[in-house]
């Protein structure tokens, strides 16, 4: 399967599924219009996922596919076609599933990368009141000097 344009891990299908899940994990709201399903958050998650061990990437791909199909049994529609309130119910079922530990583990993994995508991107910082990295540190100073700026 080809990667989606600009992505190293996601295919068009897995990107759509992941974005739908991520949008439930960190939903958009009036004061923060971009949730974890945004393109910027997806790009951060994609890069981190592309650098995970091969076995983890394979398992995550399988799990995303499972999430997409699972609601067909109950709702007759794939995950990405459900309204968000139903999507949240599906994810809550996975997160707290008492019978199949792999469902809880899989959800934990997806949640982790959704959170990394959203909270790892500087666009989330203003709403947190977090100023981000110290720009007087050597990393930034060296680069400014390399660009001829003090």
């Amino acid at each position, binding site marked *: 399967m080809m990667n989606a344009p600009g992505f190293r891990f996601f295919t068009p299908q897995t990107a759509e599924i992941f974005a739908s899940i991520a949008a439930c994990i*960190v939903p958009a709201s009036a004061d923060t219009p971009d949730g974890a399903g945004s393109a910027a958050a997806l790009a951060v998650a994609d890069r981190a996922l592309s650098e995970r061990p091969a076995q983890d990437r394979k398992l995550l791909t399988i799990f995303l596919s499972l999430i997409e199909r699972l609601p067909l049994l109950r709702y007759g529609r794939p995950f990405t076609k459900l309204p968000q309130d139903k999507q949240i119910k599906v994810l809550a079922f996975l997160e707290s599933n008492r019978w199949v530990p792999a469902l809880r583990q899989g959800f934990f993994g997806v949640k982790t990368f959704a959170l990394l995508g959203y909270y790892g991107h500087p666009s989330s910082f203003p709403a947190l009141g977090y*100023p981000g*990295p*110290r720009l007087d*540190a050597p*990393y930034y100073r060296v680069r400014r000097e390399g660009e001829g700026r003090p």
Partner: protein
Amino acid sequence: MTRTLDYDVLIIGSGAGGGTVAERLSKLCAQGMRIAVVEAGPWYRREHFNMREPDMLSLFLDRGAVPAKSFDIAVTAAQCVGGSTSVYTGVTFRAPEGLIAGWSRDFGLPELTEADVHSRFARLEAAIDAHVPGRDYENENNRVFRQGCEQLGWPVKQFQLNIKQCERCGFCNLGCPYGAKRGTLEVQLPAALAAGVELIPNCRIECVRDGGAEGVISPAPSGTQAGEHEPGPVRFNAKVVVVAAGTLNSSALLLRSQLPELSPACGKYLTLHPALTSFARMEQDVRGWGGFPKLYYTDQFSSSDHYYIETAFYFPFMTARSLPGFGAEPKRFMQAYSQLACALTLVHDEPAEHNAIRWEHGRRVLDYRLSVASKTALVHAQRSAGRIYFGAGALEYVSLLGKRFSVSRERELDDAITLDALVPGKVVVSSAHPMGGCRMGKDPATSVTNAWGQVHGHPSVVVADASLMPTSSKVNPYLTIMALADRVAEGIEHRLTR
């Protein structure tokens, strides 16, 4: 084509153990001996640390955490030059009185004495500038913790930290961008390199043998310091091979090397110091990212319930990952990020044979299950941390072990925080202190090395990291690892120069 490199001593791993061995042996370079440190991870120097969470994941083994097969727990360990000393907070604890004597007594190690190890603590502390900083290091996150403990009448103790000219930027766990944290990256390795020791980053060792090792050097990732050797397979010949790859990797390396007559104890008897983070929303700004993140701990329940509570701080992603559930509730809480106070509760676990690193189907497997005692201690600890914060005026308290997202009154803690919530995979307990797996002892049936770190039956293969520990160090193991590695290096020096 495989090239061959010849050394007198090959040190695998550049963390607290490997770095200490490298520095201690570096004086042998003046006698013409060749010593190399190989590190599987990249070489980040201070000017490479950019303080961004997604980028700095590459400092860590498997670019994040290593989950146990049970999913009870996930271990965070660094894989970069300097090892976990590059990503820890600078906490420098001496092993508690009696711990080393207990190892000596219980594991048949009469050469390993409390006095010997403690004398090394004093010398190493001086070398890494370990000291108790002044009260001016106290930021609001630390002050809230102190106030809460004092309100309850619990002891508040200050950590000894190995920092010098600290900028108090708070980014210790993503690599110190100012070089103020006096870990292996800034102290032992520069000294060893100056004396003639070679450093080979990005070199994964596939197997060790008596007299050497085989490995592969990978290209340096962009934004890191490259080594001097071209990428490709390499065969190392060495009189002594020092395995200091960290607890998750050292026993895995010995197991996959299939050394003849390797102890059946290899990989077993792990301890991890299971830990959980919890958060309190305060009325005032806490701004935990400013100032030094970890100053205080309380050992109020160390003897009775086997845990410590200490101050902590995490950046946005790690904070969000440590909250229960998903959706609007944790997002609301995160929007008060600047008002969050944070504590880490850390349990002293006991070694068990079934808790082990295994090598299965070409992969390292972490096989660890939380004991009932550890789970019970975590619940008690999470309630206690809540009491500290309500004592300091918290508006709400969030624990991964809560029946609901947050608790808003102290009297609700016992009902709201329960063992039932500790469901593997839903709540993943964390660990940053893996120990054991190559434990010292007299009996090759139940231990992997002798008191000088020499693998039973393979005296030229020597272990020098946290995996040597027969039991948990009870406290942050950094200084104990260095003292044991220093002792191991002394033994090597003696054997090479006699």
